[in-house]
């Protein structure tokens, strides 16, 4: 019980302190662009009503989920292929390095030309940006499968499907998860950016609208909400990771203690 309290105290201590500093230092701020935290919090409660969440936050999150899922499926599948076959790797590696080097936001205008300005465009932008860490980490994960395990699988004549399911995917999973974690934060960034171009709803769109109409406390409250969403998603990710990679964390602990 004391351990739990201690950990909660450590985790919450700094955020509370930062909020307190923010609160006190802006307490009697006259700066129009930097309103008191009190005002921002009041605006938060007034702005982010259920209707608003449904109208603007839900579509953003839906596009985020779709783009992220697309990046995950395509990234892991391609990564498994590229990692498994040397000739595919040799063929694709230079091209991949080139595409990876292009910052995804500059693709927005181009993708807009092909995919229009609706959901598809935003989903594609998120997927195109988020796929790289997933793809490259999966390739690395597949390439680093332990040789002894590979020999074991061959000696016991595992079929191709069993090799994929019981050897390659689990062996690469710690790396795949690392890629997915990096991709999650990229996805959130691109979700906002894609809505700043040609959009009629969404979190990014709303925040820009507030800024343009000088609704400064509302704009700040939108940024706070974005931060909260990012935080919650990373907590959710951690929970899922701890379940999926329980064996990996246990193995690491066992190796450290021996």
């Amino acid at each position, binding site marked *: 019980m004391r351990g739990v309290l201690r950990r909660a105290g450590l985790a919450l201590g700094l955020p509370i302190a930062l909020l307190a500093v923010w609160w006190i230092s802006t307490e009697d701020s006259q700066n129009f662009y930097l309103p008191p935290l009190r005002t921002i919090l009041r605006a938060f409660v007034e702005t982010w009503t259920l209707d608003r969440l449904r109208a603007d936050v839900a579509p953003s999150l839906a596009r985020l989920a779709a783009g992220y899922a697309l990046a995950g499926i395509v990234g892991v599948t391609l990564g498994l292929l590229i990692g498994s076959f040397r000739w595919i790797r040799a063929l694709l590696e230079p091209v991949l390095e080139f595409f990876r080097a292009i910052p995804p936001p500059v693709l927005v205008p181009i993708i807009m030309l092909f995919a229009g300005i609706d959901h598809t465009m935003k989903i594609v932008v998120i997927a195109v940006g988020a796929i790289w860490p997933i793809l490259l980490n999966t390739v690395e994960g597949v390439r680093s499968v332990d040789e*002894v*395990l590979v*020999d*074991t699988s061959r*000696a*016991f*004549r595992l079929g191709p499907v*069993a090799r994929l399911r019981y050897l390659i995917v689990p062996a690469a999973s710690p790396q795949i998860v690392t890629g997915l974690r990096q991709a999650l934060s990229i996805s959130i960034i691109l979700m906002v950016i894609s809505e700043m171009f040609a959009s009629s709803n969404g979190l990014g769109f709303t925040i820009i609208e507030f800024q343009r109409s000088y609704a400064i406390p509302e704009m700040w409250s939108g940024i706070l909400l974005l931060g909260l969403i990012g935080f919650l998603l990373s907590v959710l990710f951690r929970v899922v990771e701890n379940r999926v990679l329980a064996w990996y964390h*246990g193995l690491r602990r*066992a190796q450290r203690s021996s």
Partner: protein
Amino acid sequence: MLEVRGLKKVYEGRQRRVEAIRNLTFTVDAGDLVCLVGPSGCGKTTLLKCIAGLLAPTAGAVWFGGRPVTGPPEGMAVVFQEYGRSLFPWLTVRANVELPLRRRRKLRRAERARLVEEALAAVGLADVHHAYPWQLSGGMQQRVAIARAIAYQPQVLLMDEPFAAVDAQTRAELEDLIRDLWRRLGVTVLFVTHDIDEAVYLGQRVIILSASPTVVAEQVTVDLPAQRDQLHTRALPRFAELRGHVYEQIQLAKRGTRVPAVTG
């Protein structure tokens, strides 16, 4: 059952050419327990991988059950030295033992479960089905690997220095386990080791390999009683004689074939 004919393995590097095995010929009869012993670095693991079909020989061939080995053949199970790396860390002990059996469509579920349970019971691990390998000690992990091999019901069991990385007491227990399983299951065992005592204690026959590039230096029949135990067998004068003889042969083999392993 198992025939190695004129086996040669040369590793071709960019700059250098390493002849790991020069010319090996020997046979292992069905139901035999043969130990391959040789100085460290004499290509024992290379030989075992060639026999298991994991590595293609440069010349010569391995015949198993009347057929040349071109890839991992059916009816052969391998226990590797690195138990920590040959068990799947993401699978439980039970799933590890069961995995190679999944391919056998004809095997009913209940039958498969029975094989797994019997194999784990045979190695003394009836109560750790749901543990992960890394939660077990080294000796227990190697027992899991042995259970996986025997659940596979192989005709030939290949073992590559399986006890080199466990402590001396565990090692003695595992040696007795192998003798016991061999007698009970009637499986053919080819056991690779660098430990002369272990080779003589375990084997019905000991094949002595030379230093690299490897040839067969001598084959010794171990005429110790079939019922062996650590205390009495190792105290027998005959055990000491055989051990001394194998030791001498290995020393000779080391000196006699002092050909540089790296040429070109």
